[in-house]
């Protein structure tokens, strides 16, 4: 019974408690406390670590900590969200909501820490179901429709992922024989050379489609924008990014198996083309879908599609530096995007309510008139998303592009064009947000939650340009190991 | 030391003569034109009396003019004066020679043009503005054509310095080459435009709607008008000197030896006279053209200039 199990089990216990007792306010506070505890636990994991089914590596711990942090900040903002929104749902459903909050967090932790591909799959399935319930929480027609989409597409993805998982197991038979070892990432990575390459390629395809659905790579992205736009914002937007991380990391690990097999002369194909295709498709679809969005949450849903497409692209390029860039980009984006959504929630609250349907850009125009701090904060987050300096994303994107040039020059053409279009489309939203004349209204306080967003932004900047050597080493080693 | 002294004297002589002769040139051309039109024409020295009279007249300042009103005529006159000082007349090797770069000359012409145009816009009168606008239009093509022309000479003489060009052309007896013919035609077109002569502008015409240079001077009077008129005279002289130096360099004196001066002076006077006659003949034989025909006229000059430099290349290839 290793420490990692405690870290994973804690949120589920919390979910049990929050699901059974407490009103909205108590639940929100309890939720925050639980999140604080799991953040602390995820930090402590660096010291203790896990073994067996949850033998975590440094990368998993890093992203686990990120999940803990995001969960914490989201749960803190969630308090005021619940306060403002308590009347919209019966107490029972608020309990369910907080339970789901914890379950999603727990599922993402489980998915990150799991060394066993079966466990990973189970985590993804749990996350999917929890998110479905979360999306349909308000029971509005659009909410139910979004949930239905999420469920059908997510379910199919889960199914494909399971098929892929079994294929991996089968491919590992020649090397590892039957039994649990054939499902452990560590063992698989060790024996990748002796696996059945052809079968592994087939397996990777299904894994890519399965977890790619969770990572919302085009054309598997169908569920994401609607799901982001419905349901309680702290859960369905701020937190759901964590599952995307889990999916992307999973894809990375399986890609590594294939790569290693191919490199060792196995019959596996090179995983690059598959990833590059999906990545470029995501970039372009997102780029052209931005321009007609009215709802901010849906808009940034598409930006999440773009970002995971970019990461998939980096993974497809391959090579330690490109993987480093991809991982760094994942890290920064999974810090930036929740921050952005928290700022968005705060902005919507300043403009009235934060329930779905209050996130149209038309609601947010001229925000600095209501509160300078919050308005500029939101604008900064959006700006940072575009990846121009001094945004941290600039560093990772710079690395990715430079690697593309050196490894696969012609792919840098679609990459550059896609990133250009996306950045312009994102920047377009800032002008009206900041400078549009707003209806005269009373100046309102930004609230202490705004500082959390600032914290996110500072982290993104610091991790990108003032990267602690330890982090560089960690990511570098991980990239080297998974190359 | 002696050489310097001689050059200094020669320069002073050149400057003095040019400034003195300029109005006379105008008078001559007017007289000649009158004769060719079968009239008696004004006395040769009329321009001098005219200038003197203007100097003695009191100057009026339109109430809508700004403080710079008096500045423009002076600017135009000074620019033309400097260019006249630079362009060699009867002799080469003047002290001003080294500074007499063709492009500098073009720049000075542009400066004069700018000052005149601003003077025209000064009072905000309709005619002045129209004249300035037309002058700007002409200037655009004239300057382009002039630069292309200079290319031809620069290629022949391997320098863009007028003095150098004069020396080179005088030394190497260039036969009548096609390119020089083209260049001459183009040069004349530009010169006529710049000097405000028929066919692009009528110096003696007083129909406001058709005027270009005159229109810009409408609001000036007294000594300011004198400056403008004098600048006009200098402009004509400058162009004649330019053409004479480049196309009729024979017999030009050298500042170094005094003995060559008299011949140079005589020949210079002759050249000026010849050019004046030619100018008048041309003017009486042609009618003024419509304003918007002028760009075509100058565009043709520009192309001729390009042809000139191209033909130079061909000639150099075939060794002609």
């Amino acid at each position, binding site marked *: 019974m290793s420490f990692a199990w405690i870290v994973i089990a804690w949120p589920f216990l919390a979910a049990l408690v929050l699901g059974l007792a407490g009103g909205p306010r108590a639940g929100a506070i309890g939720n925050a406390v639980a999140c604080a505890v799991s953040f602390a636990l995820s930090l402590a994991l660096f010291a203790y670590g896990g073994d067996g089914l949850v033998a975590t590596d440094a990368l998993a711990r890093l992203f686990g900590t990120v999940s803990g942090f995001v969960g914490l900040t989201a749960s803190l903002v969630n308090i005021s969200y619940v306060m403002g929104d308590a009347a919209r749902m019966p107490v029972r459903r608020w309990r369910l909501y907080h339970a789901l909050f914890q379950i999603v967090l727990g599922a993402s932790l489980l998915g990150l820490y799991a060394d066993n591909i*079966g466990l990973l*799959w*189970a985590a993804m*399935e749990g996350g999917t*179901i929890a998110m*479905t319930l979360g999306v349909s929480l308000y*029971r509005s*027609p*659009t909410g*139910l*429709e*979004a949930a*239905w989409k999420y*469920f*059908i597409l997510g*379910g*199919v993805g*889960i*199914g*494909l992922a*399971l*098929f892929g998982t*079994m*294929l991996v*197991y*089968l*491919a590992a*038979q*020649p090397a590892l024989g*039957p*039994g*649990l070892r054939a*499902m452990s990432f560590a063992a698989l990575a060790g024996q990748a050379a002796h696996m*059945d390459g*052809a*079968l592994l*390629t*087939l397996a990777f395809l299904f894994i890519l489609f399965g977890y790619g659905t969770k990572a919302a790579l085009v054309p598997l992205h169908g569920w994401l924008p*609607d799901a982001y*736009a419905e349901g309680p914002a702290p859960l369905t937007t701020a937190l759901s990014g964590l599952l995307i991380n889990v999916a992307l990391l999973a894809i990375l690990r399986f890609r590594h198996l294939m790569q290693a097999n191919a490199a060792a002369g196995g*019959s596996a194909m090179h995983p690059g083309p598959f990833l590059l295709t999906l990545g470029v498709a995501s970039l372009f679809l997102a780029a052209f879908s931005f321009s*007609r*969005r*009215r*709802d901010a949450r*849906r808009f940034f849903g598409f930006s999440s599609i773009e970002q995971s497409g970019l990461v998939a692209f980096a993974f497809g390029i391959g090579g330690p530096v490109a993987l480093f860039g991809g991982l760094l980009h994942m890290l920064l984006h999974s810090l930036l995007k929740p921050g952005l959504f928290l700022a968005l929630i705060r902005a919507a609250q300043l403009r009235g309510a934060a329930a779905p*349907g209050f996130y*149209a850009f038309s609601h947010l125009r001229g925000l600095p008139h209501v509160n300078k701090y919050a308005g500029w904060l939101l604008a900064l987050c959006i700006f940072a998303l575009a990846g121009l300096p001094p945004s941290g994303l600039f560093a990772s994107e710079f690395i990715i592009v430079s690697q593309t040039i050196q490894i696969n020059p012609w792919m840098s053409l679609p990459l550059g064009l896609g990133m250009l279009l996306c950045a312009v489309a994102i920047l377009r939203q800032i002008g009206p947000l900041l400078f549009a004349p707003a209806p005269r209204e009373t100046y309102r306080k930004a609230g202490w939650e705004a500082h959390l967003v600032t914290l996110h932004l500072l982290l993104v900047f610091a991790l990108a340009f003032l990267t602690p050597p330890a982090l560089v080493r960690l990511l570098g080693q991980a990239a080297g190991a998974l190359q | 030391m002696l050489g310097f002294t001689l050059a200094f004297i020669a320069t002073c002589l050149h400057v003095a003569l040019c400034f003195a002769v300029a109005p006379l040139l105008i008078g001559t051309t007017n007289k000649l034109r009158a004769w060719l039109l079968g009239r008696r024409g004004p006395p040769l020295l009329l321009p001098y009396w005219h200038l003197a009279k203007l100097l003695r007249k009191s100057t009026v300042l339109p109430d809508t003019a700004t403080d710079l009103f008096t500045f423009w005529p002076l600017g135009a006159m000074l620019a033309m004066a400097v260019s006249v000082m630079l362009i060699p007349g009867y002799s080469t090797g003047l002290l001003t020679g080294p500074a007499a770069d063709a492009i500098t000359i073009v720049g000075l012409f542009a400066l004069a043009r700018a000052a005149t145009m601003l003077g025209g816009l000064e009072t905000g009168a309709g005619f002045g503005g129209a004249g300035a606008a037309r002058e700007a239009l002409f200037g655009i093509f004239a300057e382009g054509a002039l630069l292309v022309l200079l290319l031809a000479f620069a290629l022949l003489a391997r320098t863009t310095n007028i003095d150098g060009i004069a020396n080179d052309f005088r030394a190497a007896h260039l036969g009548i080459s096609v390119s020089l013919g083209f260049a001459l035609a183009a040069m004349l077109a530009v010169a006529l435009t710049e000097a405000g002569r028929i066919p692009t502008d009528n110096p003696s015409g007083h129909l406001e709607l058709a005027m270009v240079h005159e229109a810009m001077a409408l609001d000036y009077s007294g000594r300011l008008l004198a400056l403008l008129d004098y600048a006009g005279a200098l402009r004509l002289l400058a162009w004649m000197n330019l053409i004479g130096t480049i196309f009729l360099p024979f017999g030009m004196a050298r500042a170094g030896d005094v003995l060559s001066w008299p011949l140079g002076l005589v020949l210079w006077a002759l050249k000026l006279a010849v050019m004046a006659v030619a100018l008048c003949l041309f003017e009486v034989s042609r009618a003024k053209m419509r304003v918007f025909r002028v760009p075509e006229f100058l565009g043709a000059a520009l192309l001729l200039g390009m042809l000139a430099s191209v033909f130079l290349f061909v000639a150099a290839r075939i060794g002609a």
Partner: protein
Amino acid sequence: MSLTFSLAHLMGGIILLCGFLQLSQRRLAAMITLYQSEALVLSAAALWQGFAQHELALYLTGLITFALKGLLLPWGLREIVQRFGMIRAVETALPMAVSMIFGLALIGIAVLVVLPSTEASLSLTREDLAIALSVVLLGLLLMIVRRNALAQIIGFLSMENGLVLAAIGMPGMPFVAEFSVALLVLLAFLVVGVFLLRIREHFDTLDLSGIEQIERRGR
């Protein structure tokens, strides 16, 4: 040993056949029946594999499959059909013939992909894998060519059957029972979801093309 293969094989074939026939059905009742038979054969296959590999988990899987998928789910589905009066034929997105040709093509692809790719691996699972893959793909196809939510769910269910079929085929694969249970949870959510949506009167029809609310409200 050969008996093991041939029997397992036979059952796999039957399952594939059911999956294929579902494509050709217009009426929900018939689809449900086909699904039920599929599930029953699957449970038999699971039990047989358990007997062959002496795996308790496989026995368990077989029993679960028999109880829930073979009996409970079909009953639930029939309930829904009764309750919503969906006896009439379901409209299809593609002409029958075309969708069946597609189905054949899919089976071809599955064989093409699996057979060369598993030369190295144990021969036992080859055909099993090909069959399972084709069942999965057919299920997906069924979800796409039917305009009716229930039909799509049936497609989903049969796809999931394909997964379980693959799972029980894997030699000594851990977590088989857990997987099937997890999948069952998914299915349960699916069916209950439909039930809830219907009962809460949010959509007047289960024809999914009719519920594009998001188009009408904010984008």
